[in-house]
Protein backbone atom coordinates (compact mmCIF):
# COMPACT_ATOMS: atom_id res chain seq x y z
CA UNK A 1 0.00 0.00 0.00
CA UNK A 2 1.18 3.53 -0.76
CA UNK A 3 1.73 5.31 2.53
CA UNK A 4 1.40 8.93 3.58
CA UNK A 5 3.36 10.79 6.23
CA UNK A 6 1.52 13.62 7.96
CA UNK A 7 3.48 16.71 8.96
CA UNK A 8 1.76 19.28 11.17
CA UNK A 9 3.88 22.09 9.79
CA UNK A 10 2.09 25.25 10.91
CA UNK A 11 3.46 27.17 7.97
CA UNK A 12 4.63 26.46 4.47
CA UNK A 13 6.75 28.37 1.98
CA UNK A 14 7.44 28.35 -1.72
CA UNK A 15 10.81 27.42 -3.18
CA UNK A 16 11.47 31.14 -3.77
CA UNK A 17 10.55 32.29 -0.22
CA UNK A 18 7.33 34.05 -1.18
CA UNK A 19 5.65 33.03 2.10
CA UNK A 20 5.49 31.81 4.73
CA UNK A 21 1.82 30.91 4.56
CA UNK A 22 -0.14 29.38 7.46
CA UNK A 23 -0.77 25.69 6.83
CA UNK A 24 -2.12 23.00 9.11
CA UNK A 25 -1.04 19.77 7.48
CA UNK A 26 1.36 18.63 4.81
CA UNK A 27 0.88 15.10 3.43
CA UNK A 28 3.79 13.30 1.79
CA UNK A 29 2.83 10.14 -0.11
CA UNK A 30 5.32 7.39 -0.87
CA UNK A 31 4.57 4.66 -3.40
CA UNK A 32 4.51 1.00 -2.42
CA UNK A 33 8.03 -0.32 -3.16
CA UNK A 34 8.33 -2.04 -6.52
CA UNK A 35 9.67 -5.19 -4.84
CA UNK A 36 6.37 -5.63 -3.01
CA UNK A 37 4.19 -4.64 -5.96
CA UNK A 38 5.93 -5.29 -9.28
CA UNK A 39 3.08 -4.33 -11.60
CA UNK A 40 3.18 -0.72 -12.85
CA UNK A 41 -0.60 -0.48 -13.02
CA UNK A 42 -1.05 -1.99 -9.56
CA UNK A 43 1.28 0.60 -8.06
CA UNK A 44 -0.39 3.43 -9.96
CA UNK A 45 -3.88 2.36 -8.93
CA UNK A 46 -2.71 1.78 -5.38
CA UNK A 47 -1.50 5.40 -5.27
CA UNK A 48 -4.83 6.52 -6.69
CA UNK A 49 -6.64 4.69 -3.84
CA UNK A 50 -4.38 6.44 -1.33
CA UNK A 51 -5.29 9.84 -2.78
CA UNK A 52 -8.98 8.96 -2.60
CA UNK A 53 -8.51 7.96 1.04
CA UNK A 54 -6.89 11.33 1.79
CA UNK A 55 -9.75 13.12 0.05
CA UNK A 56 -12.28 11.17 2.10
CA UNK A 57 -10.41 12.11 5.26
CA UNK A 58 -10.37 15.77 4.24
CA UNK A 59 -14.13 15.69 3.61
CA UNK A 60 -14.68 14.08 7.01
CA UNK A 61 -12.67 16.87 8.62
CA UNK A 62 -14.34 19.57 6.52
CA UNK A 63 -10.98 20.77 5.24
CA UNK A 64 -9.73 21.82 1.84
CA UNK A 65 -6.99 19.91 0.03
CA UNK A 66 -4.40 20.98 -2.52
CA UNK A 67 -1.62 19.05 -4.23
CA UNK A 68 1.68 20.62 -5.18
CA UNK A 69 5.03 19.48 -6.50
CA UNK A 70 8.21 21.55 -6.41
CA UNK A 71 6.61 24.73 -5.01
CA UNK A 72 8.27 26.84 -7.72
CA UNK A 73 5.30 29.18 -8.23
CA UNK A 74 5.93 32.61 -6.76
CA UNK A 75 2.29 33.40 -6.02
CA UNK A 76 0.19 31.59 -3.40
CA UNK A 77 -1.42 29.47 -6.12
CA UNK A 78 -0.01 26.23 -4.73
CA UNK A 79 -0.86 27.04 -1.14
CA UNK A 80 -3.74 25.67 0.92
CA UNK A 81 -4.19 26.67 4.53
CA UNK A 82 -5.86 23.37 5.54
CA UNK A 83 -4.15 20.44 3.87
CA UNK A 84 -1.40 20.38 1.30
CA UNK A 85 -0.18 17.29 -0.49
CA UNK A 86 3.42 16.92 -1.67
CA UNK A 87 3.34 14.66 -4.73
CA UNK A 88 7.05 14.72 -5.60
CA UNK A 89 7.57 11.04 -4.76
CA UNK A 90 4.77 9.90 -7.09
CA UNK A 91 6.96 9.49 -10.13
CA UNK A 92 5.94 6.37 -12.05
CA UNK A 93 6.65 6.58 -15.76
CA UNK A 94 6.17 4.39 -18.81
CA UNK A 95 6.09 4.52 -22.59
CA UNK A 96 2.70 3.91 -24.15
CA UNK A 97 2.51 0.58 -25.99
CA UNK A 98 1.03 0.38 -29.48
CA UNK A 99 -1.87 -1.73 -28.14
CA UNK A 100 -2.72 1.06 -25.69
CA UNK A 101 -3.17 3.62 -28.47
CA UNK A 102 -6.37 4.81 -30.03
CA UNK A 103 -6.28 3.80 -33.69
CA UNK A 104 -6.22 5.41 -36.11
CA UNK A 105 -4.61 8.29 -34.27
CA UNK A 106 -2.94 11.56 -35.10
CA UNK A 107 -0.16 10.60 -32.68
CA UNK A 108 2.68 8.15 -33.28
CA UNK A 109 2.54 5.55 -30.52
CA UNK A 110 6.31 5.71 -30.00
CA UNK A 111 5.98 9.40 -29.07
CA UNK A 112 3.42 8.88 -26.30
CA UNK A 113 4.47 8.49 -22.66
CA UNK A 114 2.58 8.28 -19.38
CA UNK A 115 3.95 10.17 -16.35
CA UNK A 116 2.69 10.29 -12.81
CA UNK A 117 2.23 13.78 -11.37
CA UNK A 118 5.44 14.08 -9.32
CA UNK A 119 7.91 13.50 -12.16
CA UNK A 120 10.04 16.58 -12.61
CA UNK A 121 10.99 17.94 -16.02
CA UNK A 122 14.51 16.62 -15.44
CA UNK A 123 13.28 13.11 -14.63
CA UNK A 124 11.10 13.15 -17.71
CA UNK A 125 13.91 14.41 -19.95
CA UNK A 126 16.26 11.68 -18.69
CA UNK A 127 13.60 8.98 -19.16
CA UNK A 128 12.79 10.18 -22.67
CA UNK A 129 16.49 10.37 -23.54
CA UNK A 130 16.80 6.64 -22.82
CA UNK A 131 14.05 6.11 -25.41
CA UNK A 132 15.67 8.41 -28.00
CA UNK A 133 13.03 11.08 -27.37
CA UNK A 134 12.79 14.58 -25.98
CA UNK A 135 10.23 16.95 -24.55
CA UNK A 136 9.21 19.55 -27.11
CA UNK A 137 9.94 22.42 -24.71
CA UNK A 138 10.38 23.23 -21.03
CA UNK A 139 10.82 26.26 -18.81
CA UNK A 140 14.22 27.88 -18.34
CA UNK A 141 15.12 25.22 -15.78
CA UNK A 142 14.03 21.66 -15.00
CA UNK A 143 12.89 21.34 -11.38
CA UNK A 144 9.14 21.76 -11.78
CA UNK A 145 6.88 18.70 -11.66
CA UNK A 146 4.83 17.95 -14.76
CA UNK A 147 1.55 18.49 -12.87
CA UNK A 148 2.78 21.85 -11.57
CA UNK A 149 3.95 22.91 -15.03
CA UNK A 150 0.65 22.34 -16.75
CA UNK A 151 -1.43 23.72 -13.88
CA UNK A 152 0.13 27.15 -14.21
CA UNK A 153 1.28 27.19 -17.84
CA UNK A 154 5.07 26.93 -17.54
CA UNK A 155 6.77 28.01 -20.75
CA UNK A 156 10.12 28.63 -22.33
CA UNK A 157 10.64 30.71 -25.42
CA UNK A 158 10.20 28.07 -28.11
CA UNK A 159 7.80 30.38 -29.88
CA UNK A 160 6.51 27.99 -32.55
CA UNK A 161 6.18 25.10 -30.08
CA UNK A 162 4.13 26.48 -27.19
CA UNK A 163 4.12 25.94 -23.45
CA UNK A 164 4.43 22.70 -21.49
CA UNK A 165 0.66 22.04 -21.38
CA UNK A 166 0.52 22.17 -25.17
CA UNK A 167 2.02 18.70 -25.61
CA UNK A 168 -0.21 17.03 -23.01
CA UNK A 169 -2.74 14.75 -24.75
CA UNK A 170 -4.42 13.03 -21.79
CA UNK A 171 -5.04 13.84 -18.13
CA UNK A 172 -5.92 11.48 -15.29
CA UNK A 173 -7.72 13.23 -12.42
CA UNK A 174 -8.87 12.03 -9.03
CA UNK A 175 -11.95 14.15 -8.40
CA UNK A 176 -13.37 12.63 -5.24
CA UNK A 177 -13.15 9.84 -2.67
CA UNK A 178 -15.23 7.19 -4.45
CA UNK A 179 -14.06 4.48 -6.85
CA UNK A 180 -15.98 6.24 -9.66
CA UNK A 181 -14.23 9.52 -8.94
CA UNK A 182 -11.26 8.85 -11.17
CA UNK A 183 -11.45 10.19 -14.72
CA UNK A 184 -9.23 10.09 -17.78
CA UNK A 185 -9.84 13.05 -20.11
CA UNK A 186 -8.76 13.50 -23.72
CA UNK A 187 -9.83 15.67 -26.63
CA UNK A 188 -12.63 14.04 -28.62
CA UNK A 189 -11.15 15.43 -31.83
CA UNK A 190 -7.70 14.02 -31.09
CA UNK A 191 -8.03 10.89 -28.96
CA UNK A 192 -4.69 9.38 -28.00
CA UNK A 193 -5.30 6.20 -26.02
CA UNK A 194 -7.52 3.17 -26.41
CA UNK A 195 -10.59 2.95 -24.17
CA UNK A 196 -8.95 0.01 -22.38
CA UNK A 197 -6.21 2.27 -21.01
CA UNK A 198 -8.74 4.25 -18.99
CA UNK A 199 -10.08 0.96 -17.65
CA UNK A 200 -6.55 -0.14 -16.69
CA UNK A 201 -6.14 2.96 -14.53
CA UNK A 202 -9.61 2.40 -13.05
CA UNK A 203 -10.89 5.58 -14.67
CA UNK A 204 -14.01 6.80 -16.37
CA UNK A 205 -13.14 7.86 -19.91
CA UNK A 206 -14.25 11.36 -20.97
CA UNK A 207 -13.50 12.62 -24.47
CA UNK A 208 -14.45 16.28 -24.64
CA UNK A 209 -12.41 19.09 -26.18
CA UNK A 210 -13.87 21.88 -24.03
CA UNK A 211 -13.38 20.02 -20.76
CA UNK A 212 -9.89 18.91 -21.73
CA UNK A 213 -8.83 22.45 -22.65
CA UNK A 214 -10.27 23.81 -19.40
CA UNK A 215 -8.56 21.12 -17.31
CA UNK A 216 -5.17 21.68 -19.01
CA UNK A 217 -4.37 24.87 -17.12
CA UNK A 218 -6.45 23.99 -14.08
CA UNK A 219 -4.68 26.08 -11.43
CA UNK A 220 -4.65 22.84 -9.44
CA UNK A 221 -8.39 22.95 -8.94
CA UNK A 222 -9.97 20.43 -11.33
CA UNK A 223 -9.07 17.62 -8.94
CA UNK A 224 -5.85 15.85 -8.09
CA UNK A 225 -3.80 15.54 -11.30
CA UNK A 226 -2.55 12.00 -10.92
CA UNK A 227 -1.00 11.40 -14.33
CA UNK A 228 -0.62 12.83 -17.80
CA UNK A 229 0.01 11.45 -21.25
CA UNK A 230 2.41 13.57 -23.23
CA UNK A 231 3.52 13.62 -26.84
CA UNK A 232 7.31 13.68 -27.11
CA UNK A 233 9.41 13.92 -30.24
CA UNK A 234 12.65 12.48 -31.57
CA UNK A 235 15.73 13.57 -29.71
CA UNK A 236 17.22 16.80 -31.07
CA UNK A 237 20.04 19.18 -30.26
CA UNK A 238 19.77 22.87 -29.54
CA UNK A 239 22.51 25.26 -30.60
CA UNK A 240 22.52 28.28 -28.32
CA UNK A 241 24.09 31.65 -29.10
CA UNK A 242 24.28 34.73 -26.90
CA UNK A 243 24.89 38.04 -28.65
CA UNK A 244 24.44 41.76 -28.18
CA UNK A 245 21.48 43.11 -30.10
CA UNK A 246 20.40 46.71 -30.50
CA UNK A 247 17.10 47.74 -28.99
CA UNK A 248 15.78 48.54 -32.47
CA UNK A 249 16.73 45.13 -33.88
CA UNK A 250 15.32 43.29 -30.86
CA UNK A 251 11.99 45.08 -31.03
CA UNK A 252 11.75 44.77 -34.81
CA UNK A 253 12.12 41.00 -34.42
CA UNK A 254 9.59 40.97 -31.57
CA UNK A 255 7.10 42.78 -33.77
CA UNK A 256 7.56 40.81 -36.97
CA UNK A 257 9.06 37.50 -35.81
CA UNK A 258 10.53 37.58 -39.31
CA UNK A 259 14.00 36.18 -38.83
CA UNK A 260 14.55 35.67 -42.55
CA UNK A 261 14.70 39.38 -43.36
CA UNK A 262 15.81 40.78 -40.01
CA UNK A 263 18.85 43.03 -39.69
CA UNK A 264 20.11 40.85 -36.85
CA UNK A 265 21.68 37.65 -38.12
CA UNK A 266 23.83 34.82 -36.82
CA UNK A 267 26.27 34.29 -39.74
CA UNK A 268 26.36 30.51 -39.24
CA UNK A 269 22.55 30.24 -39.21
CA UNK A 270 21.65 31.40 -42.73
CA UNK A 271 19.95 29.45 -45.51
CA UNK A 272 21.30 29.03 -49.04
CA UNK A 273 19.90 32.44 -49.98
CA UNK A 274 21.60 34.19 -47.09
CA UNK A 275 18.32 34.59 -45.20
CA UNK A 276 18.19 34.04 -41.48
CA UNK A 277 16.95 30.59 -40.42
CA UNK A 278 13.92 30.68 -38.13
CA UNK A 279 15.20 29.84 -34.64
CA UNK A 280 13.58 27.54 -32.10
CA UNK A 281 13.90 30.04 -29.24
CA UNK A 282 14.35 33.80 -29.00
CA UNK A 283 14.84 35.66 -25.74
CA UNK A 284 15.98 39.21 -25.01
CA UNK A 285 17.54 40.43 -21.74
CA UNK A 286 17.10 44.08 -20.80
CA UNK A 287 18.58 46.36 -18.15
CA UNK A 288 15.63 48.69 -17.50
CA UNK A 289 17.84 51.31 -15.85
CA UNK A 290 20.17 52.02 -18.77
CA UNK A 291 18.45 53.23 -21.92
CA UNK A 292 21.79 53.53 -23.76
CA UNK A 293 22.82 49.92 -23.23
CA UNK A 294 22.32 47.32 -25.98
CA UNK A 295 20.19 44.32 -25.13
CA UNK A 296 21.47 40.74 -24.90
CA UNK A 297 19.76 38.02 -26.91
CA UNK A 298 19.74 34.29 -26.37
CA UNK A 299 18.88 32.68 -29.68
CA UNK A 300 18.64 28.92 -30.12
CA UNK A 301 18.39 26.78 -33.25
CA UNK A 302 17.10 23.23 -33.45
CA UNK A 303 19.47 20.64 -34.96
CA UNK A 304 19.32 16.93 -35.66
CA UNK A 305 20.65 14.86 -32.78
CA UNK A 306 24.21 13.54 -32.98
CA UNK A 307 26.52 12.29 -30.27
CA UNK A 308 29.78 14.11 -31.08
CA UNK A 309 29.01 17.49 -29.55
CA UNK A 310 31.03 19.06 -26.73
CA UNK A 311 29.57 18.61 -23.26
CA UNK A 312 27.70 21.88 -22.56
CA UNK A 313 27.60 21.40 -18.79
CA UNK A 314 30.46 23.13 -16.97
CA UNK A 315 32.56 20.95 -14.64
CA UNK A 316 33.00 23.61 -11.98
CA UNK A 317 30.23 25.87 -10.77
CA UNK A 318 30.62 28.62 -8.22
CA UNK A 319 27.87 30.47 -6.39
CA UNK A 320 27.48 33.76 -4.58
CA UNK A 321 27.13 33.81 -0.77
CA UNK A 322 23.64 32.49 -0.06
CA UNK A 323 22.76 35.48 2.14
CA UNK A 324 23.91 38.02 -0.46
CA UNK A 325 20.48 38.47 -2.11
CA UNK A 326 18.95 39.19 1.31
CA UNK A 327 21.66 41.74 2.06
CA UNK A 328 21.15 43.34 -1.34
CA UNK A 329 17.39 43.54 -0.76
CA UNK A 330 17.97 45.27 2.60
CA UNK A 331 20.55 47.61 1.10
CA UNK A 332 18.27 48.37 -1.84
CA UNK A 333 15.38 49.21 0.47
CA UNK A 334 17.53 51.81 2.25
CA UNK A 335 19.33 53.18 -0.81
CA UNK A 336 17.06 52.35 -3.72
CA UNK A 337 18.61 55.03 -5.95
CA UNK A 338 21.71 52.83 -6.06
CA UNK A 339 19.83 49.86 -7.56
CA UNK A 340 20.81 50.74 -11.16
CA UNK A 341 24.47 50.79 -10.10
CA UNK A 342 24.02 47.43 -8.31
CA UNK A 343 22.49 45.92 -11.43
CA UNK A 344 25.35 47.27 -13.52
CA UNK A 345 27.87 45.81 -11.06
CA UNK A 346 26.13 42.43 -11.04
CA UNK A 347 25.65 42.19 -14.81
CA UNK A 348 27.70 39.00 -14.94
CA UNK A 349 25.35 37.29 -12.49
CA UNK A 350 22.14 38.63 -14.03
CA UNK A 351 22.67 38.34 -17.78
CA UNK A 352 24.18 35.42 -19.70
CA UNK A 353 27.80 35.60 -20.80
CA UNK A 354 28.10 37.24 -24.22
CA UNK A 355 29.27 35.57 -27.43
CA UNK A 356 28.90 32.07 -26.07
CA UNK A 357 28.00 29.16 -28.34
CA UNK A 358 27.01 25.78 -27.01
CA UNK A 359 25.11 22.72 -28.11
CA UNK A 360 23.12 20.23 -26.11
CA UNK A 361 19.84 18.43 -25.71
CA UNK A 362 16.85 20.35 -24.36
CA UNK A 363 17.57 18.85 -20.92
CA UNK A 364 21.19 19.98 -21.07
CA UNK A 365 20.52 23.53 -22.26
CA UNK A 366 17.68 24.19 -19.79
CA UNK A 367 19.33 22.46 -16.86
CA UNK A 368 19.53 22.56 -13.06
CA UNK A 369 19.17 25.74 -11.08
CA UNK A 370 19.45 26.13 -7.33
CA UNK A 371 17.75 28.25 -4.72
CA UNK A 372 19.26 31.73 -4.80
CA UNK A 373 17.31 33.47 -2.09
CA UNK A 374 13.97 35.24 -1.98
CA UNK A 375 12.82 36.09 -5.50
CA UNK A 376 10.00 37.89 -7.26
CA UNK A 377 8.80 37.84 -10.85
CA UNK A 378 6.31 40.05 -12.65
CA UNK A 379 5.33 38.28 -15.85
CA UNK A 380 2.86 39.69 -18.34
CA UNK A 381 1.63 38.13 -21.55
CA UNK A 382 0.90 40.60 -24.35
CA UNK A 383 0.34 40.39 -28.08
CA UNK A 384 3.78 40.53 -29.68
CA UNK A 385 2.71 43.46 -31.83
CA UNK A 386 2.37 45.48 -28.60
CA UNK A 387 5.90 44.68 -27.42
CA UNK A 388 7.48 48.08 -28.07
CA UNK A 389 4.69 50.05 -26.39
CA UNK A 390 4.42 47.65 -23.46
CA UNK A 391 8.17 47.51 -22.87
CA UNK A 392 8.50 51.31 -22.94
CA UNK A 393 5.59 51.58 -20.52
CA UNK A 394 7.03 48.97 -18.16
CA UNK A 395 10.51 50.54 -18.19
CA UNK A 396 9.04 53.99 -17.52
CA UNK A 397 6.95 52.60 -14.69
CA UNK A 398 9.83 50.89 -12.86
CA UNK A 399 11.98 54.00 -13.28
CA UNK A 400 9.23 56.38 -12.15
CA UNK A 401 7.95 54.28 -9.24
CA UNK A 402 11.17 52.42 -8.45
CA UNK A 403 13.83 51.60 -9.08
CA UNK A 404 13.24 48.05 -7.87
CA UNK A 405 15.87 45.28 -7.75
CA UNK A 406 15.25 43.37 -10.95
CA UNK A 407 16.01 43.04 -14.65
CA UNK A 408 13.72 42.44 -17.61
CA UNK A 409 13.39 39.92 -20.39
CA UNK A 410 11.21 39.18 -23.39
CA UNK A 411 10.20 35.70 -24.43
CA UNK A 412 7.73 34.50 -27.07
CA UNK A 413 5.19 31.67 -27.23
CA UNK A 414 2.45 30.81 -29.72
CA UNK A 415 -1.15 30.62 -28.48
CA UNK A 416 -2.21 27.71 -26.32
CA UNK A 417 -5.53 25.88 -26.69
CA UNK A 418 -5.92 25.77 -22.89
CA UNK A 419 -8.91 27.88 -21.82
CA UNK A 420 -7.05 29.88 -19.20
CA UNK A 421 -3.56 29.72 -20.66
CA UNK A 422 -1.90 33.07 -20.14
CA UNK A 423 -0.16 32.46 -23.48
CA UNK A 424 -3.40 33.26 -25.26
CA UNK A 425 -2.41 35.75 -27.97
CA UNK A 426 -1.65 34.33 -31.43
CA UNK A 427 2.00 35.06 -30.58
CA UNK A 428 2.35 36.00 -26.93
CA UNK A 429 5.27 38.17 -25.92
CA UNK A 430 6.15 37.39 -22.33
CA UNK A 431 7.35 40.61 -20.76
CA UNK A 432 8.94 39.78 -17.44
CA UNK A 433 10.89 41.32 -14.64
CA UNK A 434 12.71 38.99 -12.25
CA UNK A 435 14.67 39.99 -9.21
CA UNK A 436 15.22 39.92 -5.49
CA UNK A 437 12.17 40.09 -3.23
CA UNK A 438 12.06 43.40 -1.40
CA UNK A 439 10.00 45.16 1.25
CA UNK A 440 8.86 48.71 0.80
CA UNK A 441 9.42 51.62 3.15
CA UNK A 442 9.12 55.40 3.09
CA UNK A 443 11.93 55.54 0.48
CA UNK A 444 10.79 52.74 -1.73
CA UNK A 445 7.55 51.46 -3.21
CA UNK A 446 6.43 48.11 -1.80
CA UNK A 447 6.18 45.08 -4.03
CA UNK A 448 2.43 44.88 -3.47
CA UNK A 449 2.01 48.51 -4.52
CA UNK A 450 4.17 47.93 -7.59
CA UNK A 451 1.99 44.95 -8.53
CA UNK A 452 -1.07 47.21 -8.45
CA UNK A 453 0.64 49.99 -10.39
CA UNK A 454 1.58 47.58 -13.18
CA UNK A 455 -2.04 46.51 -13.66
CA UNK A 456 -3.37 50.09 -13.40
CA UNK A 457 -0.79 51.38 -15.87
CA UNK A 458 -1.37 48.69 -18.49
CA UNK A 459 -5.15 48.97 -18.18
CA UNK A 460 -4.99 52.77 -18.46
CA UNK A 461 -2.87 52.45 -21.60
CA UNK A 462 -5.41 50.04 -23.09
CA UNK A 463 -2.89 47.28 -23.61
CA UNK A 464 -4.45 43.83 -23.47
CA UNK A 465 -2.44 41.57 -21.20
CA UNK A 466 -2.49 38.40 -19.14
CA UNK A 467 -0.38 37.44 -16.12
CA UNK A 468 1.53 34.21 -15.56
CA UNK A 469 -0.47 32.25 -12.95
CA UNK A 470 2.61 31.24 -11.03
CA UNK A 471 4.10 34.72 -10.68
CA UNK A 472 3.64 37.74 -8.40
CA UNK A 473 0.70 40.05 -9.09
CA UNK A 474 -2.10 41.95 -7.41
CA UNK A 475 -4.36 39.00 -8.10
CA UNK A 476 -7.37 40.42 -6.28
CA UNK A 477 -7.35 43.60 -8.42
CA UNK A 478 -11.02 44.30 -9.29
CA UNK A 479 -12.03 43.10 -12.75
CA UNK A 480 -8.57 41.65 -13.48
CA UNK A 481 -9.67 38.22 -14.66
CA UNK A 482 -12.42 39.63 -16.90
CA UNK A 483 -9.97 42.12 -18.40
CA UNK A 484 -7.53 39.32 -19.16
CA UNK A 485 -9.88 36.56 -20.29
CA UNK A 486 -13.26 38.10 -21.20
CA UNK A 487 -15.87 35.32 -20.93
CA UNK A 488 -13.34 32.50 -20.88
CA UNK A 489 -13.25 32.44 -17.08
CA UNK A 490 -16.98 31.61 -17.13
CA UNK A 491 -16.36 28.82 -19.63
CA UNK A 492 -13.64 27.47 -17.34
CA UNK A 493 -15.88 27.68 -14.25
CA UNK A 494 -18.72 25.95 -16.07
CA UNK A 495 -16.52 23.02 -17.10
CA UNK A 496 -15.10 22.79 -13.58
CA UNK A 497 -18.59 22.78 -12.12
CA UNK A 498 -19.71 20.13 -14.60
CA UNK A 499 -16.81 17.87 -13.62
CA UNK A 500 -16.79 18.35 -9.83
CA UNK A 501 -19.51 18.14 -7.22
CA UNK A 502 -20.05 21.39 -5.32
CA UNK A 503 -18.41 19.87 -2.26
CA UNK A 504 -15.32 18.75 -4.19
CA UNK A 505 -15.10 22.06 -6.07
CA UNK A 506 -14.83 23.79 -2.71
CA UNK A 507 -12.36 21.20 -1.40
CA UNK A 508 -10.04 21.80 -4.36
CA UNK A 509 -10.29 25.61 -4.02
CA UNK A 510 -7.85 27.80 -2.11
CA UNK A 511 -7.30 31.44 -1.15
CA UNK A 512 -5.79 32.19 -4.56
CA UNK A 513 -8.81 30.82 -6.40
CA UNK A 514 -11.15 32.73 -4.08
CA UNK A 515 -9.25 35.98 -4.65
CA UNK A 516 -9.49 35.72 -8.44
CA UNK A 517 -13.17 34.67 -8.16
CA UNK A 518 -12.57 31.39 -9.96
CA UNK A 519 -13.81 29.24 -7.08
CA UNK A 520 -17.44 30.14 -7.87
CA UNK A 521 -19.62 27.13 -8.66
CA UNK A 522 -22.13 27.15 -11.48
CA UNK A 523 -25.26 25.07 -11.98
CA UNK A 524 -26.61 24.85 -15.53
CA UNK A 525 -24.29 27.66 -16.52
CA UNK A 526 -25.34 29.90 -13.64
CA UNK A 527 -22.88 30.80 -10.92
CA UNK A 528 -24.33 29.94 -7.51
Amino acid sequence: MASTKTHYIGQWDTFHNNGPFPTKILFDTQLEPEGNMPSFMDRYNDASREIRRLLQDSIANNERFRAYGSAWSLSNIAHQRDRMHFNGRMNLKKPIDLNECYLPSSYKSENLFFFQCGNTIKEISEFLFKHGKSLKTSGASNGQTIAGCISTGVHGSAFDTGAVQDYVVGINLVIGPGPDDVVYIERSTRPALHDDFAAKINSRLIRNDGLFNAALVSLGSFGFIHGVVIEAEDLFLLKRYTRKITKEQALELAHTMNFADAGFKIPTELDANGKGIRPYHYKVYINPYNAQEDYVTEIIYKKPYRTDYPDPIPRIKTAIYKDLPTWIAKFAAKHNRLIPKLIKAMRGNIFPDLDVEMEGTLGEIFCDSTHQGPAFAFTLGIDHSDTRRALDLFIKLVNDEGPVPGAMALRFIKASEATLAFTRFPMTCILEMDGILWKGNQNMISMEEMEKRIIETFMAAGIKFTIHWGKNAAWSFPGLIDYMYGDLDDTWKNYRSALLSKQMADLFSNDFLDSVKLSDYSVNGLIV
Partner: protein
Amino acid sequence: MNLYKTPRYTLVIISGLMLLLQSCYSVRISNVSGVPEPDPVNFDDGFYRGKAVHIIDTTVNLSLLENEVMVLETCPEGCFQTVEYRVTLGAALLSGITFGKMRKIKVKYVCLKESN
Protein backbone atom coordinates in the same frame (compact mmCIF):
# COMPACT_ATOMS: atom_id res chain seq x y z
CA MET B 1 44.93 52.45 26.97
CA ASN B 2 42.29 50.01 25.77
CA LEU B 3 43.90 48.29 22.81
CA TYR B 4 40.67 46.77 21.61
CA LYS B 5 39.21 50.22 21.03
CA THR B 6 42.06 51.17 18.73
CA PRO B 7 40.91 50.84 15.10
CA ARG B 8 44.27 49.30 14.09
CA TYR B 9 43.95 46.41 16.56
CA THR B 10 40.27 45.91 15.74
CA LEU B 11 41.22 45.62 12.09
CA VAL B 12 43.90 43.04 12.90
CA ILE B 13 41.45 40.98 14.96
CA ILE B 14 38.78 41.13 12.24
CA SER B 15 41.35 40.17 9.60
CA GLY B 16 42.50 37.25 11.75
CA LEU B 17 38.93 36.07 12.23
CA MET B 18 38.26 36.39 8.50
CA LEU B 19 41.35 34.30 7.73
CA LEU B 20 40.28 31.66 10.25
CA LEU B 21 36.80 31.55 8.75
CA GLN B 22 38.23 31.19 5.25
CA SER B 23 40.28 28.22 6.48
CA CYS B 24 36.98 26.34 6.91
CA TYR B 25 35.52 25.50 3.55
CA SER B 26 33.55 22.82 1.83
CA VAL B 27 33.56 21.30 -1.61
CA ARG B 28 30.46 19.78 -3.16
CA ILE B 29 30.44 17.02 -5.76
CA SER B 30 27.13 16.71 -7.55
CA ASN B 31 25.84 14.16 -10.01
CA VAL B 32 24.87 15.76 -13.35
CA SER B 33 22.29 13.01 -13.85
CA GLY B 34 19.39 12.19 -11.61
CA VAL B 35 17.24 14.18 -9.26
CA PRO B 36 17.85 14.71 -5.54
CA GLU B 37 15.68 12.92 -3.00
CA PRO B 38 13.13 15.55 -1.98
CA ASP B 39 12.25 16.69 1.52
CA PRO B 40 9.16 18.92 1.39
CA VAL B 41 9.70 20.21 4.93
CA ASN B 42 13.30 21.31 4.42
CA PHE B 43 12.88 25.09 4.09
CA ASP B 44 16.59 25.91 4.55
CA ASP B 45 17.89 28.58 2.19
CA GLY B 46 20.47 27.74 -0.42
CA PHE B 47 21.49 24.63 -2.34
CA TYR B 48 19.83 22.13 0.00
CA ARG B 49 16.36 23.73 0.10
CA GLY B 50 13.73 21.04 -0.50
CA LYS B 51 16.30 18.23 -0.53
CA ALA B 52 16.61 15.35 1.95
CA VAL B 53 19.99 16.01 3.57
CA HIS B 54 21.95 13.40 5.53
CA ILE B 55 24.81 14.51 7.76
CA ILE B 56 27.81 12.52 8.96
CA ASP B 57 29.53 14.31 11.81
CA THR B 58 31.88 12.06 13.71
CA THR B 59 35.46 11.58 14.79
CA VAL B 60 37.20 8.30 14.08
CA ASN B 61 40.15 7.00 16.14
CA LEU B 62 42.56 4.86 14.16
CA SER B 63 44.83 2.26 15.68
CA LEU B 64 48.56 2.35 15.10
CA LEU B 65 48.36 0.07 12.04
CA GLU B 66 45.33 1.73 10.43
CA ASN B 67 45.52 4.52 7.89
CA GLU B 68 42.22 4.62 6.04
CA VAL B 69 38.64 5.40 6.96
CA MET B 70 35.57 4.50 4.97
CA VAL B 71 32.03 5.49 5.92
CA LEU B 72 29.33 3.20 4.58
CA GLU B 73 25.95 4.74 3.83
CA THR B 74 22.83 3.58 2.01
CA CYS B 75 20.78 5.41 -0.58
CA PRO B 76 17.45 3.90 -1.69
CA GLU B 77 18.24 4.35 -5.38
CA GLY B 78 21.80 3.15 -4.87
CA CYS B 79 23.54 6.41 -5.74
CA PHE B 80 24.49 9.70 -4.20
CA GLN B 81 23.23 12.86 -5.86
CA THR B 82 25.45 15.26 -3.92
CA VAL B 83 28.29 14.83 -1.44
CA GLU B 84 29.78 17.81 0.41
CA TYR B 85 32.97 17.43 2.43
CA ARG B 86 33.82 20.14 4.92
CA VAL B 87 37.43 20.95 5.77
CA THR B 88 38.01 22.84 9.02
CA LEU B 89 41.12 24.21 10.61
CA GLY B 90 40.24 22.35 13.82
CA ALA B 91 39.99 19.01 12.02
CA ALA B 92 43.32 19.57 10.25
CA LEU B 93 44.99 20.51 13.55
CA LEU B 94 43.46 17.50 15.31
CA SER B 95 44.76 15.18 12.63
CA GLY B 96 48.18 16.89 12.73
CA ILE B 97 48.75 16.69 16.48
CA THR B 98 47.55 13.05 16.64
CA PHE B 99 49.78 12.05 13.68
CA GLY B 100 46.70 11.31 11.57
CA LYS B 101 45.11 8.96 14.10
CA MET B 102 42.07 11.08 14.85
CA ARG B 103 40.01 12.00 11.81
CA LYS B 104 37.14 14.40 12.15
CA ILE B 105 34.59 13.71 9.42
CA LYS B 106 31.97 16.23 8.45
CA VAL B 107 30.02 15.27 5.34
CA LYS B 108 26.60 16.23 4.01
CA TYR B 109 25.02 14.13 1.32
CA VAL B 110 21.81 13.84 -0.66
CA CYS B 111 20.66 10.61 -2.26
CA LEU B 112 19.18 10.24 -5.71
CA LYS B 113 15.41 10.31 -5.80
CA GLU B 114 13.94 6.88 -6.33
CA SER B 115 13.16 6.32 -9.98
CA ASN B 116 9.86 4.53 -10.50
